[in-house]
């Protein structure tokens, strides 16, 4: 049992919180309006080594562990979930290239760490409540060719990235694989850029794959470790849960501050249990979500055991992500409610968090994890 943050972890939390509040939060509105993150902000994020996690001579001495990664994600999302996730997802591609790629592939990762204009894309989610063991995108090797076929959703920087990592399974073995697809490949079809209720700066699109590549496009070449890859995939999925926790906590803190200032019926509205209990309930849920994400991350760090462990870990990540994202949707909702009409105006940032949380809640949703519950 160890629930006390080490000095190193506390320092990461402080660094990420500072970046979130000083850089991400002030840039949130302009980034959303522009549909992209400003270069200076992006550089600050990649330079911190908290988002673009790769072994690189530029980004420190190696890859941070999953617990640290989640702490960083939570506190960056506390600043702004849209910018945080854009950088975390781009960084996730770097993580895969660096941890599982060949020397050439790891070179792409180094560029993602050092070049502020570079974006990584990761095609992973498939909707329908499917988890990694149910993803139907196939990656098969036939002699000297590697074939990728399937449809992915919520692929960040699908159009902007010059390197795209796609996760799928080998249908003959059911084992998770990944491929590195060059940008602009003719077999890659992008859905139109519809835009979204939130998280727009990640420029996510649906992507169809019907691609034939040289065999060395397989991530890691012929020496890939499927269990290690599965653990990395779970870590990347968990980032959404961690970001949801940060989003919810920020909205909660903002509404709590407002409730102490706003006077109605002769006192601060925090003096009414209809307001204070509303937020207290949500603080309980946020803390539960935070610990659930933390324990799942700790299990990932213990990893490298075997297929059974991956199965139980997958379950833990699925539950943690779904609980944390629903908590974020409900918490940002109640925070907006506490601000009343002011919450409905973009003079306050709560409506932005409300929209971001809705987008988070749909990315990796699985109906097996929770049932529809009427409010009354």
């Amino acid at each position, binding site marked *: 049992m160890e629930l006390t943050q080490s000095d190193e972890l506390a320092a990461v939390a402080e660094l990420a919180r500072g970046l979130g509040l000083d850089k991400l939060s002030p840039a949130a509105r302009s980034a959303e309006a522009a549909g992209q993150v400003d270069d200076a902000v992006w550089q600050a994020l990649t330079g911190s080594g908290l988002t673009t996690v790769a072994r690189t001579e530029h980004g420190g001495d190696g890859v941070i562990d999953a617990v640290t990664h989640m702490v960083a994600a939570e506190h960056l999302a506390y600043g702004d979930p849209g910018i945080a996730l854009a950088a975390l997802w781009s960084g996730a591609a770097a993580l895969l290239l660096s941890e599982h790629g060949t020397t050439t592939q790891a070179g792409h990762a180094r560029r993602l760490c050092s070049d502020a204009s570079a974006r990584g894309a990761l095609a992973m*989610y*498939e*909707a*329908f*409540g*499917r988890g990694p063991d*149910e993803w139907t995108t196939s990656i098969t090797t036939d002699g000297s060719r590697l074939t990728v076929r399937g449809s992915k*959703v*919520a692929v960040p920087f699908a159009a902007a990235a010059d390197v795209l990592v796609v996760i799928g399974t080998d249908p003959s073995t059911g084992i998770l694989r990944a491929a590195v697809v060059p940008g602009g490949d003719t077999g890659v079809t992008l859905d*139109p850029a*519809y*835009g*979204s*209720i*939130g998280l727009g700066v990640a420029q*996510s699109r*649906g992507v169809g794959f019907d691609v034939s590549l040289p065999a060395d496009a397989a991530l890691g070449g012929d020496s890939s470790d499927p269990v290690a890859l599965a653990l990395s995939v779970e870590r990347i999925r968990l980032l959404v849960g961690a970001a949801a926790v940060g989003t919810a906590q920020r909205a909660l803190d903002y509404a709590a501050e407002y409730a102490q200032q706003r*006077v*109605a*019926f002769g006192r601060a509205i925090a003096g*009414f*249990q*209809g*307001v204070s209990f509303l937020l207290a309930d949500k603080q309980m849920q946020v803390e539960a979500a935070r610990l659930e994400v933390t324990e799942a991350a700790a299990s990932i760090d213990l990893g490298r055991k075997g297929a059974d462990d991956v199965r139980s870990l997958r379950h833990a990540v699925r539950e943690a992500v779904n609980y944390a994202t629903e908590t974020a*949707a409900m918490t940002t*909702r109640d925070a*907006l*409610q506490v601000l*009343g*009409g002011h*919450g*409905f*105006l*973009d*003079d306050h940032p709560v*409506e932005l968090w*409300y*929209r971001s949380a*809705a*987008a988070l*809640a*749909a*990315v990796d*949703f*699985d*109906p*097996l994890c929770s*049932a*529809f*519950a*009427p*409010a*009354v």
Partner: protein
Amino acid sequence: MSLSFQLSDELTDYGRKLRDWSVHEARPLAREADDRHALPDGWSKVLDSCPVGVGRTDVPDAEPIPAFPDGEKVTMLVYYENLNYGDPWVMTAIGGGIGHLPVKKIGTPAQIEKWYTPVITSGLTTGFALTEPQCGSDTSRIETTAMRDGDSWVLNGSKIFCSGGARAEYITVFATTDKSAGPRGIAVFVVPKDTPGLIIVKPNESKLGIRSQLTSELRFENCVIPVENRLGWTAAGPAENGSGVSGQAGALSALADNRPNVAAWAIGSAQASLDVARERLVERRAGFTGRRWELVETELGRMNSALDRGRRLNLKAQYLVDQGTPSRVAAAIAKGFSPQTCERVVLRCMQLLGPEGTSKQLLLEKWYRDIKIIDIFEGTGQIQRLLVARQLMGRAVG
């Protein structure tokens, strides 16, 4: 003896026609209304194409909402749900505002003739200015002042969320004539457009949803209006044949009757989300595992039942009004019950669809933003709970 929730065939048919029209004619312009923060181009022509009377106030002699045997208020529920089923922009185009409602409620016969009747017969937009930056639910904290100066009232203060403000023919403004009198000092004044001292600070506030609904931020700087522009007054002072209802209480009671109507709007948007989601999900059924598909069907069924519960509460509240026995608590139950559940229905539909559900390819994400206001305006969910709790436990409720 039996009871029945059955609507007449005529009203059911009216609702169906309204729904078909709102889906086919109004919905295609929904994205434009949201993007522009204004009514879509050609909105008036779209309204012209409506096959049934909807009581437009933007044109003279428009066909009114027909009278049905079910009662006027019950009819309004069918109207609100089906009109909004297409998309809420169309309601913001039809509704000429609510500024004329307090006139009808507490105005003198002469004031009703001057300010209410023309809205109904000729079609005019009216503004309603109650909320201020520092007060929403607690209207007794209104700081806008109205000071008597000879034959005039002089208004000073700020208002936000003034519906229709920037294009209204006149605005009904809540202001205090005597701060020491608390709620009893609040009166309602009619301020015609272009009155010197009426300043439109922001013509349309930047909102999360219902962006085509014009809401304005206003400031009054020594805004002078005649004495008889105070509702319930003549040039000689308080009218003898006035309603006798105080300004604040009377004008706000005009809103209470509307509470089930906005709950019906929430249900309209939630039902639209459910129907859009169901159609898409059925198309994509093959993508789900058997176990998940079973859950999807269960969820859709549960959401439908939740909406039906809200419909019954709305019907009961408005039925009571039509019977001449309105219940403030029944209206509070109706408005307290549905809006938040409707938000959850739309959210769940988006989740079931995955990232497609939150994308702007569909309108669910818009409806999720639009209907958030319903649990806030016209009495927040918290205020409705207070009303219900007070019926149970009296003034002991804090």
